[in-house]
């Protein structure tokens, strides 16, 4: 089994871990981290396929490389937006989960301001 295949299996495992964490972790910040883990696995799959497409003296197909660079930046901006939403939720009713069962605790001093 070649190195590239091993990296590909590793990427598949990262997607699996990320998916599991996304479903089972009740805290939203943990879900965001898990989703980033899932995303990095998907990006690595691009890299593995691009690595197999090495040709013309380039070690990795430049088109998927460019997609992944764009994707990493978009993933970062989505993460930043998600975290801003989470912090606002926390500021508004003190909860860090989405479950309707958690009673909102009253905070006397909202952070920031």
């Amino acid at each position, binding site marked *: 089994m070649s190195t590239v*295949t*091993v*990296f*590909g*299996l*590793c*990427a*598949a*495992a990262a*997607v*699996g*871990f*990320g*998916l*599991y*964490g996304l*479903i*089972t*972790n*009740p*805290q939203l*910040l943990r879900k965001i*981290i898990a989703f*980033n*883990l899932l995303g990095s*696995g998907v990006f690595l799959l691009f890299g*593995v396929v*691009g*690595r*197999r*497409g*090495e*040709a*013309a003296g380039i*070690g*990795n*197909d*430049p*088109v998927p*490389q460019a*997609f992944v*660079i*764009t994707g*990493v*930046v*978009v993933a*970062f*901006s989505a*993460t*930043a937006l998600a*975290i*801003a*939403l*989470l*912090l*606002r939720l926390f*500021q508004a009713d003190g909860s860090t*989960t989405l479950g309707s069962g958690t009673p909102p605790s009253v905070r006397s001093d909202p952070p*920031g*301001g």
Partner: protein
Amino acid sequence: MSIATLFEIVLVAVMLGLGIWTITVRETYSAAVGFIAYGLLVALIWVRLDAVDVALTEAAIGGGLSGVLLLGAAARLRGAEPRAATAPGKATRAAAAAVSVLTAAALATAVLLLPDSVPTLAPTVVANAWATSLANPVTNVLMAFRAMDTMLEKVVLLLAIIGVWSLASDNAWGGRPGPRHQADPQGILVFLARLLPPIGIVIGIYIFWTGANHPGGAFQGGAILASMWLLAVMAGLTDMPPVSSRWLRFVLVAGPGLFLLVGIFGLWLGPGFLAYPRTLAKPLILGIEVAMVLTIAATLGLLLAGAPERSVRR
């Protein structure tokens, strides 16, 4: 077994171990730290995959800036860890595990069954490199062959910053993002914030400039410039500008705006939208990239700073 193979096995093992730890560890703060280390190892895997441009992006944005963002959020949410009662039950966990294992197994099978004849666009990219006179194939794809993606991605960044800003509370509307940072003026943070930015700014501009012909580019350079700005802000040496400031908004739209203008210019004078006239291709691309590196640095920094929290007295 060669040293390289051994290195790769250790790399993969540590990376997967960190991935599991990031998911299962109890404290959110530890998970964020684990994710930073994980991101840096993923960057090393990208080097082994011979994709240095992606490795630089992953290290700077995926590991570095995302890590700071997660750590900052984890620090603010400390003390809000929910009780164990909110965790899902055994049945949910088992179902989630089954779905995850199935997904991972399906992807692994796809990796193992990839066809032997590999489709690749690398020869096409090399064959058309003359059109831009840039030697870095990835920059060619980003700035010329798939310029539309890159332009729209700038628009996504802009939309994200609008989204973050619109979460400000009423009394902080248009104000300065994040808390005002204070640090011990004799401390190590202030010392580093004075020492590193001159070096970091030079490195950031170099990485951006060398991206025309070697690994590097506007994203990676912009991320380094953003981190230098944030370092100075976190040490309390400077403050984030109020988001209502006009020059800041100009910088934020400069990159996508210039990109769009050049695109329309191509529609008017050249063969199509975002088609550069052949003789002007390189100066046009470099001009767009200069505007883009400023926009990326400002946007990444502001995304990290978060929603406006302090009102500005006029």
